[in-house]
């Protein structure tokens, strides 16, 4: 039942008129057909019904009707009050809308089972589906249904976008929360880092101690060698000064040939002295204690005496042979042939590969040439001591052989010199003999250089508590250290190389220690921060959440972009031929078919299967294709109005259709049938159809 009453006061300037429902009954059945002449108040009634049930707050309302409602409610020349009561068939539901004063708000109350609730516009539209429409241009209005799809798709797309943001905020929240897995990981990293650091510290301590020892050894050896060289020079200077002193006052003249031969022979003997000195410095580590006296014998062989005696001291040859015997007995390189061969292979490979350092060649095992060379150099280090020992052994042997050969040549030169001295004849060109002075000058120059070169080892030794006075004692101590044994055969240059290697190793360890300490510090900081955090509710779902974000993003894209483009192409009727078979378009057509349900055409009723707006066809379940343009206006209006009623919506419907003048009885009948069907299902509360007529005619449509 529909009960209504209203009072509309309209100001015409010269008079004010009051309008009341005096031509249409104020009590109407829920399903009703109203026919009445113009100015009978039928449109006012419909506008009040729609306005009373928050029609102005309905976004999809026909705009022309909305304007009429707004005019009724808000015009300054009109004042409206009304009340409308609707009850359903069994009286279990009552909807009441009132506007008590012209300025007052519209109040809608719902009473169910005696309980009354005030409904706000939003609450009302969530529960009731108010349909107020005029079926003008119905074919075109089918597009409105498609627009609805677009609006809902976009709305869902936006909601899904908001849901994606929510998921992202959750994943961010998890990352800011306590992560038990990371906690365990950090504890493991700190434990491993601490163990590694301990090992590095131990290795560093050993290497730093050894570096200090080998540096001390090297500088002490350097000081010993330089001091010894200086003593030798002073000794030679002393002898030469005595000789010059002895010859003072005598004018020495010698023949020119003798003089030339003397210069040549002295130069040769000087080279022999260098060779002899080199042997002395290299051979010592190869001698056992019982053979050490050879060093003394060796140093006492005076090659300068050869210029007095015109023959090289025979002790040189016999000592060379003695030293060679000793060397042979002390070390046989053959015993290390395997290791030495390996060392040679490494060194030959390194030398060969060095030629290709700049190439892009990658070797088997995915190594670059640089990486492979570095690996070979690391491996070859283990043979360094052995290699140097063998090399120096070979070198001293070679020098001894060379010196022995030199003896023969020197004796020949000395013999020639002696001969020239004796063959000197009167009248032969003579020159001043100033060789001794020149040699003294040369020796003094050498002495200055050696004295200067003594400063560096002296300073370095002083830093380590080593001085000339305790040098022998320190060296004895150092040489007794087992770890230094391999270095005893090293010369100064070789020792410097070993020190450089050790320094690099120490620097590398120091760098590693620094990096590891920093890493452990950062792990500890992160652990402390983690431990202060609370665990997140979704901690264990992080992976699922990442996956979900991606899937939600895909769905958002589908609704907001892919489907939106498709529905726009349906609205614009410009679907690409190739895409016409897309399932989406097929489903849109089926959806429209479901919404319209039945159509009348040429006096027959057809169940609609699909409405293809792109091709402009209605396809019936019986297989008939009806062109939309071939549909009569009344039939199209009927199809459109039924589409508004055919919904899956669970809300109760209040349907008001005005100005259906173009529709004949046959076209209206499906609407009444639909009204009754929905009313019996308790889904329709009100169904009103209004059209203009010459007289007032109210027909209940509750019964067929």
């Amino acid at each position, binding site marked *: 039942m529909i009960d209504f009453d209203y009072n509309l006061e309209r100001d015409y300037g010269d008079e004010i008129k009051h309008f009341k429902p005096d031509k249409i009954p104020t009590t109407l059945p829920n399903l009703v057909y109203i026919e009445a002449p113009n100015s009978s108040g039928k449109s006012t009634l419909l506008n009040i019904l729609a306005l009373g049930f928050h029609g102005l707050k309905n*976004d*999809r309302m026909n705009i022309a009707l909305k304007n009429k409602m707004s005019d009724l409610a808000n015009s300054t020349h009109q004042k409206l009050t009304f009340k409308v009561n609707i009850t359903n068939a069994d009286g279990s539901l009552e909807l009441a809308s009132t506007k008590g004063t012209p300025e007052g708000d519209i109040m809608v109350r719902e009473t169910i089972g005696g309980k009354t609730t005030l409904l706000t516009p939003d609450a009302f539209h969530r529960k009731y*589906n108010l349909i107020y429409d005029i079926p003008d241009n119905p074919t075109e209005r089918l597009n409105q249904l498609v627009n*609805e*799809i677009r*609006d*809902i*798709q976009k709305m*869902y797309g936006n*909601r*899904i976008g*908001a*849901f994606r943001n*929510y*998921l992202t905020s*959750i994943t961010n929240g998890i990352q800011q929360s306590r992560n038990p897995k990371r906690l365990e990981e950090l504890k493991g990293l700190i434990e491993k880092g601490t163990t590694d650091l301990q090992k590095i510290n131990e290795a560093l301590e050993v290497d730093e101690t050894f570096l200090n020892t080998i540096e001390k050894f090297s500088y002490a050896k350097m000081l010993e060698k330089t001091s010894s060289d200086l003593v030798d020079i002073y000794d030679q200077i002393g002898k030469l000064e005595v000789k010059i002193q002895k010859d003072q006052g005598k004018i020495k003249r010698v023949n020119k040939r003798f003089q030339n031969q003397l210069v040549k022979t002295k130069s040769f003997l000087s080279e022999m002295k260098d060779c002899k000195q080199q042997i002395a410095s290299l051979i010592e580590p190869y001698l056992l204690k019982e053979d050490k006296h050879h060093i003394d014998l060796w140093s006492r062989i005076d090659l300068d005496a050869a210029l007095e005696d015109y023959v090289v001291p025979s002790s040189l040859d016999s000592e060379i042979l003695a030293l060679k015997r000793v060397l042979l007995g002390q070390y046989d390189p053959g015993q290390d042939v395997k290791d030495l061969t390996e060392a040679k292979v490494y060194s030959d490979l390194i030398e060969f590969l060095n030629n290709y350092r700049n190439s892009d060649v990658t070797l088997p095992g995915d190594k670059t040439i640089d990486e492979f060379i570095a690996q070979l150099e690391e491996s070859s280090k283990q043979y360094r001591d052995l290699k140097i020992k063998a090399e120096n052994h070979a070198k001293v042997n070679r020098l001894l052989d060379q010196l022995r050969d030199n003896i023969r040549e020197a004796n020949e030169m000395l013999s020639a010199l002696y001969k020239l001295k004796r063959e000197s004849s009167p009248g032969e060109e003579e020159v001043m003999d100033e060789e001794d002075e020149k040699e003294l000058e040369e020796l003094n120059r050498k002495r200055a250089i050696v004295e200067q070169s003594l400063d560096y080892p002296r300073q370095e030794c002083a830093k380590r508590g080593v001085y000339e006075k305790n040098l022998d004692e320190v060296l004895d101590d150092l040489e007794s250290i087992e770890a230094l044994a391999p270095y005893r055969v090293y010369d100064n240059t070789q020792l410097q190389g070993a020190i450089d290697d050790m320094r690099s190793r120490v620097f590398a360890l120091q760098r590693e220690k620094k990096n590891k300490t920093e890493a452990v510090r950062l792990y500890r900081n992160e652990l402390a921060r983690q431990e202060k955090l609370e665990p997140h509710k*979704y901690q264990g*779902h992080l992976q*699922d*959440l990442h*996956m*979900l974000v991606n*899937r*939600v993003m*895909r*769905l958002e894209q*589908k*609704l907001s972009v892919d*489907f939106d483009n498709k529905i726009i192409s349906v609205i614009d009727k410009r679907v690409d031929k190739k895409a016409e078979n897309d*399932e*989406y378009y097929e*489903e*849109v057509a*089926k*959806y429209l078919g*479901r*919404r319209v349900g039945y159509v009348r055409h040429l006096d027959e009723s057809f169940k609609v299967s699909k409405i293809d707006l792109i091709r402009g066809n209605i396809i019936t379940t019986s297989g008939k294709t009806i062109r939309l343009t071939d549909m009569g206006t009344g039939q199209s209006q009927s199809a459109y109005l039924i589409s508004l009623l*055919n*919904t*899956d*919506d*669970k809300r109760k419907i209040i349907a008001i259709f005005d100005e259906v003048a173009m529709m004949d009885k046959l076209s209206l009948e499906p609407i009444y049938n639909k009204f009754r069907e929905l009313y019996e299902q308790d889904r329709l509360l009100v169904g009103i159809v209004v059209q203009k007529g010459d007289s007032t005619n109210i027909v209940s449509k509750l019964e067929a």
Partner: protein
Amino acid sequence: MDEDSITSFLDSVIKDELERKIIRMISEGVSQDKILDALLESMNEGGT
């Protein structure tokens, strides 16, 4: 607007079960935290 009819329409054009589930819950106005719980449960069951 007939949201329910359009939700049914979307159900027919979306083939992925998880996506359908999201659309259904979004259309029913289910809160975001409840949607998340339902989806995680469904993922853990291996249903989607």
